[in-house]
């Protein structure tokens, strides 16, 4: 049985607000084709299993699994959908290989959210229909939930709006060096602070805008990777957790799901002091404060210190712990189910020294973390190493 699982190929499209030139099948084909070229494999012969990460409501199809095989090269092959973020799909692929049943597994996640004209209504449909949704029906946009969370997080930790704004400045600046990013910009924190208040304390620029895009990973067992003559990026540890669907009962100031998922991943990777081992991280930043809250949950900085650290430049590309060098979701765009895999992608590119103008020197271990967005209290973590 294979004990190690590695990433032997990645493929991706650019991320942008609209993609009218390609259908949702064509965007998947593009990324898949590039991933297979990168891995040097023929999907019609070499791949044992295919996994897509998709939510039917985002897609507009019931039983979306059925619409996947053509564009992934998985016709007449084992194929399934994981109804969750891309890192959950990665973890499923990882486990399939660890069972010894599969040697090479493909994981795909995409967003074609520009095809959905009623994003807010689908989001509302994720809210508890008895206890919470009636309030949404009266008129409140579901993102107010993030506003409440930011308020409580700032109150518990002393984090300031200026510090959250600093996350936006940093990530959008990082995105300037990422040709795939959709929302790169050179702005200062004043621009963020003076942007329109939407769900106070959340302002317009604190919120990651939606984007289309697709990411495909090719995973392989150690033996299969050797045959492909690759230096894979190894998956050292994974974890995932959910807190509660009772919004009233959750920890508003903490990201408990990220605390639990990361502890599981650290344990698997034999990491006792994550700050010493993790060289850089891509963490969920669907909202500016989330990056800070997540970094604290992951144990990559002390609780209440992330805000101060970001102000001091600790998470800059040349800081002690570079965070979201890709530009994060604030700079790349929020690709929903693909966002976790986009984070994994950046970690892999950095570890392969393939990150172009944003390349980090001397990195050996990186962490990718995802959150499934409002209104969830769920997320996953994956740790990668050269």
């Amino acid at each position, binding site marked *: 049985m294979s004990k190690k699982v590695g990433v032997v190929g990645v493929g991706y499209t650019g991320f942008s607000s609209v993609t009218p030139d390609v259908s949702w*099948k*064509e965007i998947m084909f593009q990324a898949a*084709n590039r991933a297979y070229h990168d891995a040097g494999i023929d*999907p019609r012969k070499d791949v044992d299993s295919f996994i897509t990460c998709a939510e039917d*409501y985002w897609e*507009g199809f019931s039983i979306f699994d059925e619409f996947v095989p053509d564009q992934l*090269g998985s016709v007449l092959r084992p194929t399934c959908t994981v109804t969750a973020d891309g890192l959950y799909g990665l973890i499923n692929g990882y486990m399939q290989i660890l069972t010894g049943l599969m040697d090479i597994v493909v994981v795909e996640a995409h967003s074609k959210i*520009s095809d*959905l*004209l009623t994003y807010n209504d689908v989001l509302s449909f994720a809210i508890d229909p008895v206890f919470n949704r009636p309030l949404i029906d009266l008129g409140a946009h579901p993102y107010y939930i993030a506003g409440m969370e930011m308020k409580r997080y700032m109150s518990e930790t002393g984090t300031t709006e200026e510090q959250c704004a600093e996350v936006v400045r940093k990530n959008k600046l990082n995105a300037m060096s990422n040709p795939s990013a959709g929302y790169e910009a050179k702005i200062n924190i004043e621009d963020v602070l003076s942007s329109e208040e939407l769900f106070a304390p959340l302002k317009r620029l604190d919120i990651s805008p939606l984007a289309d895009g697709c990411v495909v990973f090719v995973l392989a067992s150690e033996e299969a990777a050797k045959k492909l003559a690759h230096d894979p990026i190894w998956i050292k540890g994974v974890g995932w957790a959910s807190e509660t669907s009772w919004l009233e009962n959750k920890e508003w100031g903490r990201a408990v799901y990220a605390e639990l998922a990361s502890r599981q991943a650290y344990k698997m990777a034999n990491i006792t002091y994550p700050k010493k081992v993790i060289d850089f991280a891509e963490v969920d930043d669907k909202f500016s404060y989330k990056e800070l809250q997540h970094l604290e949950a992951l144990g990559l900085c002390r609780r209440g210190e992330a805000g101060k650290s970001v102000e001091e430049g600790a998470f800059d590309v040349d800081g002690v712990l570079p965070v979201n060098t890709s530009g994060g979701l604030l700079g790349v765009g929020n690709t929903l189910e693909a966002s976790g895999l986009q984070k994994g992608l950046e970690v892999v590119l950095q570890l392969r020294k393939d990150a172009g103008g944003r390349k980090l020197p001397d990195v050996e271990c990186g962490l990718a973390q995802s959150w499934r967005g409002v209104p969830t209290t769920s997320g996953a973590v994956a740790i990668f190493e050269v």
Partner: protein
Amino acid sequence: MTENIKKFYGEELSRKQISDGKITIVEHSPKVKYAWSCGEAMSRFLNELKEGKLIGRKCNKCNRILFPPRMFCEQCFKATNEWVYIKDTGRIMTYSISYVDTHARRIKKPILVGVIAMDGASKNMGIMHYFDEVKSDKIKIDMRVKAVWKRKEEREGAITDIKYFKPLGE
């Protein structure tokens, strides 16, 4: 309902109990709307329908003509190579005589629905559509059929630009 059900305790739930609010329920209707970008292949296909034409794509590796067209071949996993017009005639692969409509209501005149293997396209390439001008006891597998199109000014770039398929009567 069988006699056996009398052995169990409880009472049968009636539609009236629900409409009278005796059963506690919460209702909600999702408001969802999509506008799928069609991409290169589907866009060309739909625009050709407006012209009363059917178009496919050829893969130069397996030499199949894929219809409806796609920009990649699912068997060879490569980009397809060229546009090929196909005929609006074909052969019935399979069909069903549907006596029930979309809302599960019984209808008098049955709807004949089936898949047509189109002339000029490769094996297992065709279109799903209605049949008409044929009695339900006369329709059969392998029957030769031809598209009956809407008038040009009525066409809108949808598969319903073809009204139905009718027997060729060869």
